[in-house]
């Protein structure tokens, strides 16, 4: 799914991923965590990666495997390294008005990483294990089915 660099893309991405998470069998609390993480990933791409420049795009993809839901958020910025992100829990940063998005994604998802994307920008890759007893993603949601659908869209 290709998103414009605009505020509305944050809600759109959240809503799309929430629909996938609900269909995959995640409960309310996990859906909240997934939705929040997607918001934060797209906010990060919108604000820091693409620097709110409307000519740049944000790419969102969702993979459903047999074990987990994997979310990719790619921007067209210059990329960054996690080690360079200040700790928002440090005393000197507690009253900072920004810089909590990465922390929240790490807290709410089971796996989280930032890699260099094909655009040269940052690609956030984060995942959540599917709930036990959820419908097999090889049925309605085959492996990578959602990603393929979104890329076709």
């Amino acid at each position, binding site marked *: 799914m290709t998103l414009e660099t605009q*505020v509305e893309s944050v*809600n759109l991405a959240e809503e799309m991923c929430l629909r996938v998470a609900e269909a995959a069998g995640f409960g309310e609390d996990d859906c909240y965590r997934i939705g929040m993480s997607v*918001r*934060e990933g797209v906010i990060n791409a919108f604000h820091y990666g693409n620097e709110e420049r409307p000519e740049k795009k944000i790419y969102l993809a969702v993979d459903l495997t047999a074990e987990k839901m994997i979310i990719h958020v790619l921007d067209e910025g210059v990329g960054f390294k996690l080690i360079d992100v200040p700790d*928002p829990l440090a005393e000197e940063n507690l009253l900072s008005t920004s810089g*909590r998005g990465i922390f*929240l994604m790490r807290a709410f998802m089971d796996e989280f990483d930032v890699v260099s994307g094909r655009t040269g920008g940052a690609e956030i890759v984060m995942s959540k294990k599917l709930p036990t007893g959820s419908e097999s993603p090889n049925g309605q949601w085959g492996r990578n089915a959602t990603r393929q659908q979104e890329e076709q869209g």
Partner: protein
Amino acid sequence: MSLHATHRDAGKVTVVDLSGRITLGDGSALLRKTIRGLLEDQRKMIVLNLADVDYIDSSGIGELVSGFTAVKNQSGDLKLLHLTKKVKDLLQITKLYTVFDVFTEESAALRSFN
């Protein structure tokens, strides 16, 4: 659901009743505008009633902190009332729960300014 804000005076304290989501865009902007407006009117003792706020993202957290700092810089105080579970959890994991004065009863929040 977008954010709605109304405010009422209780003596020297202003209670801001918020409902909806404090998120990037209109929600954060409205919170900023509301707090800045109160400060311009010299209303520096503020309680944010978050009973009907069930969602805050990092932008909303940033706006809460920004408002808190702006009020403190004018020798006022900004306190929080009636946190929902999600908002309380969010403030706890970001360690902001210890920064803000948080109340579960409005009367106690109002008395705390004396």
